[in-house]
């Protein structure tokens, strides 16, 4: 309610009402006074002239007419209209109109102003010089018609004033609506801006100068805000991107340190393991040499030998994971034949029912690499991809191509710098992994397979090989969508070209 009273419309209406509450009664009173005075003056003047003219008629030639004529004249003055009292006094003689009662003559009290007495009759006396005597003509005129006219005028004035007030209020309401509509629109637009919607341009269709000026100023303010907001958003986006890259790089660095730690630990374990394996293998070998071929113990010892050899294989894989020596790297001009050979091994391992698509952008190189390890890496990755599509179906894609790494992309990974790389991609549309699984896939002996089905060393070996080659692994996976493993090997800066062994 209080808010409604503070609107432009309310304020204007209240102001107009207050002004008119004071002014209209004053104006009405003034107008009524003027009308009343005019009416009274006209009445008084007309009755006095009437009385004088009648008196002049009665005193023609300075004599009075005969009595019957006097009485007839007095009657005719009453019958003439507004006169209700007519009498003539000459000495002791009183002539009274026969249209009046005798007692009426006693009511005569001379008026000097209209409405002076409450009898609603304007009495006046007019002297007539009759010879040496003075006669007095007493006449009374009815004030009521004039009073009624004054009352009628008063009502008319009040009606006009009321009508004037209503029209004025109506006009004020319309005018305030015309004024407040563009302001309300500006207010609505301002609220939109305050709530963050800067797209709406502020304008009005009003032709009122002040409102137009206000609209232009607000629009200028909006466009300035849009500019500032745009710069702020760009700055925030830039900071968020930088922060996101920093976090990604930190996470990656922690992951790398963890894997290096595990690699060091695994290397130490493998060292001790091999010291145990050597006598185990050699003693078993000696025992087999000593045992007769038909010995019932021989199959058991042969099984021990197989298990020891399996342990030897595991140990070699663990060492591959932990190895950081660059021994065995050679500059290879084009690794696509290495990939071809690896793919022939992959096809031998994976059933033909699984679709494998290759995309090799030849030539790919040069690259400082150990060709055997690159092949092992591809086989291990494809083996995992095959496991991923085995249950849910899907296809495997292997891609190898030279590519440029931008500084923005490189900032997210510890082992990447802006420059030329060879990217090996193994992707599958299999079951995918959750984030927790992805974080651990390079850990030695980590496996999602059933116990006994795989060693959990395949990707650890891949990691060791990539580290040895100074490369970077990026794994992206989504459950029920698939997994993409991208490996970036830095292109060899050496111009020297060495042919791939066996090619």
């Amino acid at each position: 309610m209080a808010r409604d009273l503070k609107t432009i419309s309310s304020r204007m209406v209240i102001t107009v009402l207050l002004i008119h509450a004071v002014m209209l009664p004053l104006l009405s009173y003034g107008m009524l006074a003027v009308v009343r005075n005019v009416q009274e003056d006209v009445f008084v003047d007309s009755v006095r002239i009437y009385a004088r003219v009648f008196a002049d008629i009665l005193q023609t030639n300075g004599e009075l007419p005969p009595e019957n004529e006097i009485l007839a004249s007095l009657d005719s003055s009453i019958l003439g209209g507004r006169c209700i009292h007519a009498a003539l006094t000459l000495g002791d003689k009183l002539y009274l109109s026969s249209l009046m009662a005798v007692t009426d003559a006693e009511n005569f009290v001379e008026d000097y102003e209209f409405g002076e007495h409450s009898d609603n009759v304007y009495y006046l006396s007019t002297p007539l010089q009759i010879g040496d005597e003075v006669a007095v003509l007493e006449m009374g005129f009815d004030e009521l018609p004039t009073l009624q006219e004054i009352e009628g005028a008063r009502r008319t004035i009040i009606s006009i004033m009321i009508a004037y007030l209503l029209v004025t209020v109506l006009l004020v309401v319309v005018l305030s609506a015309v004024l407040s509509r563009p302001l309300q629109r500006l207010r609505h637009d301002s609220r939109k801006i305050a709530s963050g919607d800067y797209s709406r341009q502020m304008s009005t269709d009003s032709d009122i100068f002040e409102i137009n000026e206000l609209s232009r100023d607000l629009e200028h303010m909006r466009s300035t805000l849009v500019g500032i907001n745009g710069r702020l958003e760009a700055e925030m986006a830039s900071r968020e991107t930088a922060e996101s890259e920093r976090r990604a790089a930190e996470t990656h660095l922690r992951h790398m340190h963890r894997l290096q730690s595990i690699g060091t630990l695994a290397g130490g374990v493998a060292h001790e393991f091999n010291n145990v394996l050597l006598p185990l293998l050699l003693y078993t070998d000696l025992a087999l040499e000593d045992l007769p071929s038909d010995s019932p113990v021989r199959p058991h010892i042969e099984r021990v030998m197989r298990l020891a050899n399996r342990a030897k294989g595991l140990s070699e894989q663990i060492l591959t994971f932990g190895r950081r020596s660059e021994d065995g790297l050679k500059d290879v001009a084009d690794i696509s034949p290495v990939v071809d050979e690896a793919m022939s091994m992959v096809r031998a391992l994976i059933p033909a029912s699984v679709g494998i698509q290759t995309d090799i952008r030849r030539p790919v190189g040069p690259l400082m690499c150990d060709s055997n390890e690159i092949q092992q890496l591809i086989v291990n990755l494809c083996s995992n991809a095959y496991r991923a599509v085995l249950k849910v179906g899907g296809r495997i894609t292997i891609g190898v191509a030279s590519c440029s790494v931008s500084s923005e992309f490189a900032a997210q990974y510890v082992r990447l710098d802006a420059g030329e790389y060879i990217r090996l991609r193994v992707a599958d549309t299999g079951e995918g992994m959750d984030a927790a699984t992805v974080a651990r896939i390079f850990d030695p002996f980590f496996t999602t397979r059933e116990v006994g089905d795989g060693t959990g060393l395949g990707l650890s070996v891949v990691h060791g090989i990539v580290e040895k080659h100074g490369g970077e692994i990026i794994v992206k996976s989504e459950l029920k969508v698939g997994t993409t493993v991208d490996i970036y090997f830095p292109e060899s800066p050496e111009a020297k070209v060495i042919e791939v062994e066996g090619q």
Partner: protein
Amino acid sequence: MSRVVIIDDEEDIRLVLSEIFDRAGFDVRVASNGDEGLSLIREYGADLVITDIIMPGKDGVQTAYDIRMEFPKTKIIVMSGGGNVAPLDYEPGAITTTAYLASANEIGADMTLTKPFDRHELISAANELIAQKED
């Protein structure tokens, strides 16, 4: 009969290698550390020394170096368990046995072997090296 000295801090390895070389017809002596091995060589002589690389006290590289200096014609095989030498603590700078083997090669070891290896491979390498010495 060719003389072989085996140096390793692991008793099981000493015993099994001794058995293998004995069966192959070598005159075998074993030592559990580098100094002991050097004493044996000084006392009995050796055509071939097989030494582990990671041992308490004098390591295999130093042992091979001392032998090479004192007995230039003696053939030396250095063997390693692979991996690295700081198994229980994470040390970014942990020395790998690959580095040890490289050092052994530099000071003049005739061959390096990574455990576990095949006994026939070992005997054949030993025969080959001894044959080179005799030439």
